């Protein structure tokens, strides 16, 4: 009897163990993720992907901080005081292919493009067609903006010559996600990048519907698609295109220049009338200490300080100028630049709030479009350039210009857009040197055409992708 039990046990054991476990029992749980292949089916899924793309855009490696700060510390607006060792080599303009920012900026922007490409390439999506197209249109516009941002920093258009060179080597324009035939793309020329971006924007404009625009301004709208086009055309000196695109935005009648009284408060509010497109920060989703407020303002980081040379271009009474200010609870700054007791000049008016770091980040403001329009009018010989130019100082407590010249537009752009990442690109696109203007600057001037007018392609890319050549000088 006992023996029978033992045999029975052995049999059950044998059958049990050797049949119980198959491959299916080894299926791991997917708790926080889903399979790409099977999870993109509906408009709702596309929306999620678009939010993901925007989230990537808001990272401190991109619009959350770095792309804006780079445009400033490279220029004569700001420098790094090395308080937390951030943006030091950047302010020295002494980056190399192993520099962290060369890689994080490149990778982050291409990750936005990857997200956009999934949306663009998605097929068989169920849902309202107009809405699907509106999402796809946004993805096209994001792809254009992202490639433009890449080429501004990594393209060779400002290196080795005396003016912007369209035939120089740019960056790869990537148009498909997980494209196994093109895992190692080569670099397109600057002109190709520009033209692909135009094409993507035209596609965006045709797919999107103004009625579906998200009112929060935290997503790409039809207006933003034209505004981006205006910015790109302005950078490349395509003034007729810039004129048309800017005019489309102006004629929409949706936006207005911030008044002197609302200029600073608009930076603390969401979806202001002068905002065309902004990056959302919320109490639960913001770059926190790695964001713009923390790098500009006194505190743990506070590395990026304004140069006295910048503060000096403003007239007294200009809301964008400098006044004494020390951060105190409940006391708001009255100008963009605050001068602390020890004489340090800081941006305290834009992206103003530290913890909880919830100010949105304006990416395109109406004032920029107005200035692009003024510049395009001058370049194309149009009328009223002075009127459009003076629309800005008139609302800032500054005196008006008597003449609409490119120099005045650039001066007004420097004043209006300071700390927002434009200055370096304005110097570059107009073929100007980066001058040494103050003792605390970390470099002693860089002439236009120097190798460091372009970032190095990160070695994490060139060492892996044999189709990409390193930039001159690195």
């Amino acid at each position, binding site marked *: 009897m006992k023996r029978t039990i033992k045999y029975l046990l052995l049999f059950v054991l044998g059958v049990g163990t050797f049949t119980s476990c198959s*491959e299916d029992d080894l299926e791991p749980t997917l708790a926080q993720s889903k399979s790409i292949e099977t999870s993109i089916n509906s408009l709702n899924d596309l929306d999620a992907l678009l939010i993901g793309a925007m989230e990537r855009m808001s990272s401190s490696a991109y619009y959350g901080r770095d792309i804006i700060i780079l445009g400033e510390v490279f220029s004569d607006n700001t420098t790094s005081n090395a308080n937390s060792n951030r943006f030091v080599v950047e302010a020295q303009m002494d980056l190399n292919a192993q520099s962290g920012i060369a890689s994080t900026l490149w990778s982050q922007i291409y990750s936005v493009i990857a997200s956009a490409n999934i949306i663009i390439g998605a097929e068989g999506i169920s849902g309202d067609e107009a809405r699907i197209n509106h999402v796809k249109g946004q993805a096209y516009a994001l792809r254009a903006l992202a490639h433009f941002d890449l080429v501004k920093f990594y393209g060779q258009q400002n290196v080795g010559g005396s003016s912007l060179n369209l035939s120089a080597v740019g960056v790869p324009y990537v148009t498909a996600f997980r494209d196994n035939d093109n895992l190692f793309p080569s670099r397109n020329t600057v002109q190709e990048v520009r033209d692909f971006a135009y094409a993507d924007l035209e596609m965006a404009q045709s797919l999107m519907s103004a009625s579906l625009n998200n009112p929060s301004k935290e997503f790409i709208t039809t207006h933003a698609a034209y505004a981006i086009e205006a910015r790109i055309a302005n950078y490349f000196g395509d003034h007729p295109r810039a004129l048309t695109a800017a005019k489309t935005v102006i004629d929409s009648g949706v936006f207005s220049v911030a008044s002197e009284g609302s200029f600073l408060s608009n930076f603390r509010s969401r979806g202001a009338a002068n905002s065309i497109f902004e990056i959302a920060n919320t109490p639960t989703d913001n770059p926190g200490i790695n964001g713009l407020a923390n790098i500009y303002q006194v505190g743990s980081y506070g590395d990026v300080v304004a140069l006295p040379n910048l503060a000096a271009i403003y007239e007294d009474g200009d809301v964008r100028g400098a006044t004494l200010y020390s951060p105190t609870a409940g006391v708001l700054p009255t100008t963009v630049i605050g001068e602390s007791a020890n004489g340090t000049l800081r941006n305290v008016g834009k992206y103003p709030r530290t913890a909880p770091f919830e100010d949105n980040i304006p990416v395109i403001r109406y004032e920029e479009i107005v200035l692009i329009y003024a510049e395009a009018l001058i370049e194309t010989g149009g009328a009223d350039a002075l009127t459009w130019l003076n629309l800005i100082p008139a609302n800032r407590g500054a005196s008006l210009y008597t003449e609409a010249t490119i120099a005045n537009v650039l001066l007004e752009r420097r004043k209006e857009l300071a700390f927002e990442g434009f200055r370096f690109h304005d110097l570059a696109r107009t073929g100007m040197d980066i001058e040494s203007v103050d003792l605390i600057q970390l470099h002693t001037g860089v002439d236009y055409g120097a190798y460091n007018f372009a970032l190095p392609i990160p070695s994490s890319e060139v060492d892996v992708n044999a189709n990409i050549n390193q930039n001159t000088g690195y």
Partner: protein
Amino acid sequence: MKKRLNGILTLLLVLAVQLTFAQNLQVTGAVTDADGMPLPGVNVIVRGTNTGATTDFDGNYTVNATQGQVLVFSFVGYVTQNVTVGAQSVINVSLQEDAAQLDEVIVLGYSTRGVEEVTGSSVQIGGEDIAEAPMVSVDQALQGKVAGLQVTTSSGTPGSAQDIRIRGQSSLTAGNEPLYVIDGVPVTNSNQAGSANVSSLNPLAAINSQDIASITVLKDASATAAYGARGSNGVIVVTTKRGRSGDTQFTFTSQVGVQNDAYNKRDVLTGAQRLELLGEALVNSYGANGTNGDFGFTTENAIPLAVQFGVLPQGTQNYDGTDYNWSGLIKNEDALLQNYTFSATGGDELSSFYASVGYNETEATVIGAAFERINGAFSFNRKMRDNMDFSTSLNVSNTTQNPILEQGSFFSNPFITRYLMNPFNNPFDADGNPTRGGLQFGSLHNTLYVTENNIARTMLTRALSNTRFDWELFENLTFRNTFSVDWQITDYKNYQNRYEGDSRFVNGSITASDNKAFNLVYQGGLNYNFKLGQDHNFDVTGLFEYQKNQNQYLFGYGNNFPADGLTNIASASAEFEAFSSFSDWYNVSYLGLLNYNFAGKYVLDATIRREGSSRFGPGNRFGTFGSVGTAWNVHREDFMRGSVFNTLRLRASYGITGNNAVGLNAYQALLGYGADYSNNGGATPTQFGNADLTWEKGETFDVGFTFGVFENRLTGSFAYYNRRTYDLLQSVPLSRTTGFANQDQNLGEMTNKGIEAELAFDLVRTADFSWNVSGNYATVDNEVTKLAVGADGNDIDPLAGSVYKTTQVGLPAGTWFMRTWAGVDAQTGLPTWFVNGRDGEVTSNYNAAERVDQGVGALPSYSGGLGTRLQFKGFFAEADVYFQGGHKIYEQFAQFYLRTNSFTLGTYNGGAELMDRWQQPGDVTNVPRVNYARNDNFHATSTRHLYDGDFVRLRNVAVGYNLPSTFAQSIGITGLTLTLRGTNLATWVKDDGLLLDPETQAIGYTTLTTPPVETYTLGINVKF
């Protein structure tokens, strides 16, 4: 002495037998162990008869015998003793523990084999050696004891994970950590810290080393193949203590000691030195002939003028040269270490138990960090029936570690304070309290205030239960069942105060997280051992193993506290964050083991394991691994009889093992749903995926011999191994234009080969005096032989983008790759590097110098240990030395404290080495001129900061005294040992430039973690 008396006595008895006639008598007596404790359950048999008895609880027996018959006293774990019955009717016997037998059984995890049946390469360390090391986790005790095993202290913070490499690095990007097996069951050993930024917490630290019976390190395929899948990096088999039958024996051990940093010569500038360099640097920038133009700076006016220009912050001009000694203030001198264990063991013929409670409290050598553990262990064995053995053990512990922010250059890391604190800052206010609200200069926090007022605590509760049931169904056929559950519950809390430190500007913050790791293993199988004829001995095992591992994580954050003294999320008011996640993995294996020997002379060992892992995609989950090994016990041959060899074994093995240490779900192309934008959740592509992903395989060939000569006074072993890892699981870098950084692929090949030798010699071996010396030495030669190929047909460097390292075919994996330092130009005072990276032309333009491989990587190519032990009567003394080298290590934070400009002289602080700076043409030095406004890249990655890693360390020195048992008994105890021990007492480093401790993490960077410690302890061991 006693032994010799016994010998004489026996001789006399033999004589007596010859003189007397056979005579029936009743023999009685008591059986005791060497310490005089009664031994119950000892079999006493009259040889050649069925007559016999068993000793009772007091060790007494009664048996009928006639004069001249032989009584055989036998008991498991003791040397069997034969006593011939003489005229006397009382025979008391003292049984000696069978030390040889204990040594000669090798615990291999799934099986236990006699030393002569083993064909693989393994080393077993006894529990005493482990228990004596005054470290909180058992793995630290292995350093220097096992040839081919390298342990480095990645942090001296008590409880931190150690880096262990067995026979080098076998994988590029999959794990290189060995597999841990506790009481036959594989466990997970991942860092349990609540944050990647703070001190790591090693789950092994939850186990009291006093509860360990032995550790076996399995190195080659024959030994590790049973672990198939996860054996590639070697296996560490930990066996915990079991009960021993007999009267209950109590043991109390205590170790109390003090610790300090073992080796640290990296000093920083004093305030006065920094002031001097600051003035000089300003003049070099803004003085006459200044690099940035002449702004009228002179040595006299430089500081006030710089303040005026806004180059230096207000107040700098008032610094009076006081030395505030920050690096001294962050030290916890003579950090206290206490370890107490109280254990009891005993049992009868059928059952035995072991129980212990332990308490360990270890301070760190830095302020803010500490470790505390309270644990209980219980193990119980019972012979349920003649053919059923049951055993269970339970080890429960609560470990609390106060971690510090040591895993990076965080402002509140005390080691950042040590090296980078602006020395002009006064740490204390007028009342002598640490200042708060931000230091006057720079952005570092006042670590003194922060460590006093923040709460950082990782609390690991670990419960490890292991139950085994063996049922001998038929003769020699045993049905084995093992069931093991390991719960690791980690509670992490980090409160940051409202006034100073990271959360000053958010009015205090709290992070709390909770991780539950659950590991379940079931092993069931059949073991059959049988003989064919006289000499063919077989042992066959078939086993099924199932392993399930689950992790649940919950995290919360909040900031902005309304008042002091509130430290929980309940009282926070802003920026709440919450997160939870779940992950799991599964393993299923079928294992076959065969061990055959012919008359103990020829041994054949074969293992096959088919294993499935959830880490790979359908169709690729299962892999088959296995090994064959053979050994020849030459000393058992007839022709060896009478030779000098007491032992001579030749052995060889070959096998294939695997590695599945890739990320969970790594094979799938994934959308992650962690994105959050504009108050909506979103999806981002997070993983490129690779449906073909499968096992990495390692093929090992191992050959060696073991010998013992002159009555085993000289013993040793030698092994040569060659391991080829192929289908390497690597994270192959992708073009970033894909939106991904890399993709896991099975590509590439790497070899590790080397030798291992061990030698021990008893110089003196008498009853009263013994002196033994031993040593071990191992080499490892690592070479990458194949890599993934890129678009242009050239290899892709898996470390592309690294500032420090490269992995290329023909070189060791992770070879240092950087610009080569060429010294300071004696004319200009500027740093120079070789243009071609090797020799000849030099340049001061950092970017113009080529990066070249430096020939070696971060893993030592040789390592070993030397030891000696001397015993004279009750006194003993021992010493162990550990050494390793042939590699280079990089001083990573030189990039900060060796800058020659405003960074060190204006904002932070620099190394004292900066005082050697170049000052005028002709100066020959290794530190360039200081210049406030320039970046000369002296600090940037180059061989200037790459050092030979060779070192020799006096790992362990101890002297002690064993109280003779007669004295002990007179004071009512059975044994007493006192030991005074020192660890890491002296260190010799080869490279003069290396000022930090040469023990680094395995990847070779010196970091800002607590350095390894020098310890003095007094240990007491009382048995009663």
